[in-house]
């Protein structure tokens, strides 16, 4: 068991996501930075779908009630294990009673705490990812005890990788043209692709809004399926990028589609961070 002493700013259980029920309106969910999340499981020899704690902006303080192994990936939250600094991407044995304290993120904003065997919280519709109205709780609260799985992993014998030195500040995000992109005029395309854009304070697991708007007279579309990473444009020109907890359908024009890699990079950005879209050739 892992006890949550302080829950941090926004901490939730996440895994690969909920794939099977989108035709019933169920969002995909899952770790926002899938790359960091998967790397954590690889480092612990876990199954790829083993659930982890996704910690945003400021991390939690937790106490381990049993001996196990953990690894931190993603943003650097200046973690301390019993007051000793703990680096990301290094699988570490923890003992019963050990306390892990995560601080404020300074490179990136989301950190994954993966644990040997994974967190074994309730599984609903094929996933443990927390989402309002599907799991009992939509995020982690303090004082809860989280059950964990078993594992024979030994950090002495596990996989070792060089700590990947991600520069989460890099603004470039690769995109494909969305279904309505071709309807934009040249100056509108330039606004979207040649300018440095930035994230507004309205950013959460459902969607990230940009500060910049584009003036347009695009027609509304018939409600259609959307994906995480779809950039939509509302009638007043607000640009919204859908994230993993987004609705499964949308009715706004779809201008761009972020690549998976771009979506994972975006997940590490926060209010005021700069982004710049780079259009990739179409996949035809």
């Amino acid at each position, binding site marked *: 068991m892992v006890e949550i002493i302080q829950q941090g700013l926004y901490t939730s259980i996440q895994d690969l996501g909920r794939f099977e029920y989108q*035709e019933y*309106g169920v969002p995909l969910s899952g770790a926002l930075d899938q790359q960091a999340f998967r790397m954590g499981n690889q480092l612990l020899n876990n199954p790829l779908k083993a659930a982890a704690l996704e910690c945003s902006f400021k991390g939690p303080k937790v106490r381990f009630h049993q001996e196990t192994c953990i690894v931190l990936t993603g943003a650097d939250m200046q973690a301390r294990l019993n007051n000793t600094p703990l680096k990301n991407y290094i699988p570490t044995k923890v003992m019963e009673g050990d306390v892990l304290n995560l601080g404020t993120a300074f490179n990136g904003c989301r950190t994954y705490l993966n644990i040997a065997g994974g967190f074994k919280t309730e599984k609903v519709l094929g996933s443990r990812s927390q989402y309002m*109205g599907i799991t009992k709780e939509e995020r982690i609260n303090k004082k809860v005890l989280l059950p964990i799985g078993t594992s024979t992993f030994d950090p002495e014998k596990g996989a070792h990788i060089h700590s990947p030195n991600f520069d989460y500040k890099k603004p470039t995000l690769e995109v494909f043209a969305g279904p309505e992109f071709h309807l934009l005029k040249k100056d509108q395309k330039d606004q979207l692709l040649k300018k440095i854009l930035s994230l507004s304070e309205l950013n959460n697991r459902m969607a990230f809004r940009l500060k910049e708007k584009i003036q347009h007279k695009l027609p509304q579309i018939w*409600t*259609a399926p959307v*994906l995480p990473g*779809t950039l939509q444009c509302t009638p007043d020109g607000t640009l919204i990028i859908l994230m993993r907890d987004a609705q499964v*359908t949308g009715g706004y024009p779809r201008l761009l589609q972020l*690549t998976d890699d771009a979506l994972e990079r975006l997940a590490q950005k926060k209010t005021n961070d700069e982004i710049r879209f780079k259009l990739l050739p179409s996949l035809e």
Partner: protein
Amino acid sequence: MNLVPFRVIVLHPKALLLEWEQEPSDQLLEKLLGFKRLLQNQDEVTRCTMGYKSLMIHLSEKATSLSKVKALLYKRYNTLEITEFQSGVHWKIPVCYEETHAPDLVTLAQALNKSPEEVIQLHTAATYRVCFIGFLPGFLYLSGLNPELFLARKEKPLLKVPKGAVAIGGKQTGIYPNESPGGWHLIGKTPLSFFDPKKIPPCFAQAGDWISFEPINSKAYLKIQEELISGKFKISPHG
């Protein structure tokens, strides 16, 4: 060259969006449903999701070449024309239109120059088609609202629309599957649950099904609510 009535947009290396040119209709919905069923049995496809006039096809690891997948889509679509369509099942949804459950019925009726009774009569006379599910888990996009009941959404959305609220917004009618913000006019409420994450599948209805509303009084509403808790009431398709 295969002629098909949709354009294929490669949205993502693992997702194709098929968009039909024609306006939504029952005939188009049958085609979308039929094509979806057919594609879901292909090794190259993991799942399909629907919109009013589009299908999103999520590709599996077996889909190694986009041009091959496209060729497969064209070939399969052209075999679809001769297959038989399924028509979906009919669900009768009990709705209480009494004032306590219908805070906006009177204002909606006034705006449409009708009596509340006329609104209820028009709303219950129609049979609606489930086009697809989206917006919220278990929210059915229904077609078939009588144009006499069209009314623009409220200017100020409510922060909390209760679970089960039956509402009209613009050219649509729908049921809120869970408490959520919403800008539609609330004209009634059903005790039935349209989304239950403990059940598989989590909704009793699915795209292609039919829905009609049956007026009940608040006493019957309470009775159904109690029977749902005790397990005595089970929703079953009509006829």
